[in-house]
């Protein structure tokens, strides 16, 4: 049985999305996986889900550098979506950047649960599972 029902990937890099999806499947992490190519698409998708009365994905893997709306802007807009139980949604930042400034910035945002440097490995996913299980 999968660890969670719905997981969302927001990343403009198709290879990265492909890789993460494959890893998630191998780890049997999630029943369903939704992917958006940028922040705006994700916000709009979330709004549609809510309008249809569906639950938001409980895990979100968010890339930082994206066209149109990047990860930071997504976070800004995300907290503005009305009636969202943010505690329910765990957002993990994904970045290929090893720049400490990005890591520090990410950790300062309360909505962000953790920060992963790409590529996300099975080991990383086990960490997430362990973390969420203890809560």
């Amino acid at each position: 049985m999968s660890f969670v029902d719905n997981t969302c990937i927001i990343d403009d890099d198709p290879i990265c999305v492909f890789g993460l999806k494959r890893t998630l499947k191998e780890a049997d992490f999630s029943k369903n996986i939704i992917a958006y190519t940028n922040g705006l698409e994700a916000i709009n998708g979330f709004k549609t889900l809510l309008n249809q009365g569906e639950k938001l994905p409980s895990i979100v893997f968010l890339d930082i550098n994206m066209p149109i709306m990047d990860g930071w802007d997504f976070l800004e807009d995300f907290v503005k979506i009305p009636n969202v139980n943010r505690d329910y949604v765990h957002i993990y930042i994904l970045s290929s950047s090893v720049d400490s400034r990005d890591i520090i910035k990410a950790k300062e945002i309360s909505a962000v649960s953790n920060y992963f440097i790409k590529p996300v490995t099975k080991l990383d996913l086990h960490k997430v599972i362990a973390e969420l299980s203890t809560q």
Partner: protein
Amino acid sequence: MFIFIKKKQILKLISPLHSLSAFPFAIAIIDLNFHIKDYSEIWIEEFPFPKNGTEISLKNLNILSEKLIKCINDVASNHVISYKKIEIKSKNNNWYSWNIAKAIDEEGNISGIILSAENITYQKREIQLLNNAVQVAQIGSWELDLLSNKLYWSSITKYIHDLTDDFIPSLEQGINFYKPGKHREKIAKLVNNAITSGKPWDTELIIITAKNVEKWVRAKGEVEFVNGKCIRVFGTFQDINKQKLKDLKYNEVTNRLKIATKTARIGIWEYNYENKHLFWSNEMFSLYNIDKQKFNGHSSFWNQSLHPDDKEFCSKKIEECLAKKEDFEIEFRIIVPNGKIRHIKSVACVELDSSENNIVKLVGANWDISELIHSKLQLSKTEESLQQAFENSSVGMALISLEGNWINVNSSLCNSVGYSKEEMIQTKITNITHPDDLSKDTEFLKQMHLGEISNYTVNKRFYHKNGSIITANLTVTTVKKVSGHLSHFIAQLIDISPMIAAENKTKSLLEITKNQNNSLLNFAHIVSHNLRSHATNLLMLTNFIKDETDPNEKAHLEVMLQNASESLNETVHHLNDVVHISTNAEENLRSVNLFNSVKRVKKNISAILEENNAKCVINIPKNLKIKAVPAYLDSILLNLFTNSVKYKSEKRDLVIELNFKIKNDDVILYFLDNGQGIDLERHQNKIFGMYKTFHQHKDAKGIGLFITKNQIEAMNGSITVESIVDKETLFILTFKKAEQIKN
């Protein structure tokens, strides 16, 4: 001697004798017509008649004066006055004392006039002489009779005391006229001494006269002894005030002169031409450092001290002047016995005899001018070195009058401003001062005039002759006159333009360095992110391929690997573009015609513009030139044009408008389109970042504006953006204006 005869006596005499001839004095009777009726023998002696005719009229005699006629008429016509006495000087310069009386007949009528005359010429002259003598000498006499204790003063004595003739002095009064204090004490002592010991005195003292005037008098006194007892003291009294005051004055002046010459160390000498004797005052000896005892009064004495080098010209000069009998001034050196050299100035006057032909003597003064000479030498040395320092200083220096005119300028200053010395002196400092800096030191100048400060330093800009601006560090110092008032200013100008240029260069280098540093940091970030993301993907994909068993899935992975490699390659190309921009832009800057560049770029993309039905409005003058790297400018314009096309609004046809503005050294280009606009509130910070796209367009790569910004900054320009979403986007580009000279 005057003989007074009463009227009645005369009448008695006349009656019995019927003749006046026997009267022992000059007497005559005249009728009312002035005819002489009778006369004495003495009369005829005194006033001889002319020997013609019997009728002798008084009018024929030269003794009759107007004054006498008046007196006779007065007596004859006046009933009250019957007698008159008068002294008249006759025409022959004799003095007569006249007695005039009426002659009455038996009936009591006036029958004539009786005249008697006494020749008093001798007495008159005596008195006159005495008066004159007394007047001249102002010598009065006095006498004290110790037996009767009476004091007698002559009228001159009284006169000296400012007293009238009728004043009768007492002994006490006499003493009290002397000025209280030492004068009065002295006379009292002298008189006492004389009375007791018989010692005469002769002294000069001050009296205070009846009119309260101080006067110097010479009082002489002697005593007369009879039987060892003093019976009389007498003497003379002389007004010596004028003389005494003169003497005192003279003494004072002489004394003053003596002190002056002594303290001023002025030696006085006198050379008697006749007996060849030389006189030296004491100061001369100290001046020449010679023992007075050794002085022989010989004219050669002076010569011995004279410096050998000065001997010839001195004697020559003196001879010349003596030949012309002229006063002279001469400066020479002497060697004093201790071997030291003194500079002496000598002034000499020639005194001639009454014929003015022969020199009687020479009188002169000598004084030591060594200090003056040394000061002069010192001064000229200082002046010379100052002049040298002024002229050769690497600092621009000038003397400036209170009115701001150049008095003198040195060559450094001339070099700094490009004018010649002559040109400079014709002009004022204000004429070459930058107008904005004219009032920069007004407050300082005011304080200088008030004496509150004596110098100040400011930075001022001046114009070089060629029109360029020189920034100078100006230090102004005041120079005062002896009176303490301001005389002029000394200005020192250090041209700090090169320093400022260097400083600006350093500043701009620093700015460039900072920017480059920022770019590098940014670049490092980009590299770390973008290259790493590709590397990550490649690593991930190869791992998948390695583990994959399904051939279909493996093929799929291989395609993805291919794509990832291409992306990496593309990114590397982009990064290379960016790196290339910043390295050597500065030296490739050239003057580029903006209008032509815009036209060319527009032409290159004319197909796309036409396809999109775009309209371009280009409001740029054809001759506007900017400093640019042509390839960058083309790239920037191309990027802006294609962006406008890419992000045009679907709701309307694209209109692109280019405007410009010139501001100082900058050319500002406004690139406006009516496209989709950018949400600046959200994207302000990222718009010119790498791999940022804000539109969902298939061609959006997020590299264009990043490169544009880098290119324009490499050309010392800048780019900013203003936008209203769904209305317009305005890019504002700033370039450096190309200088007119270069082309």
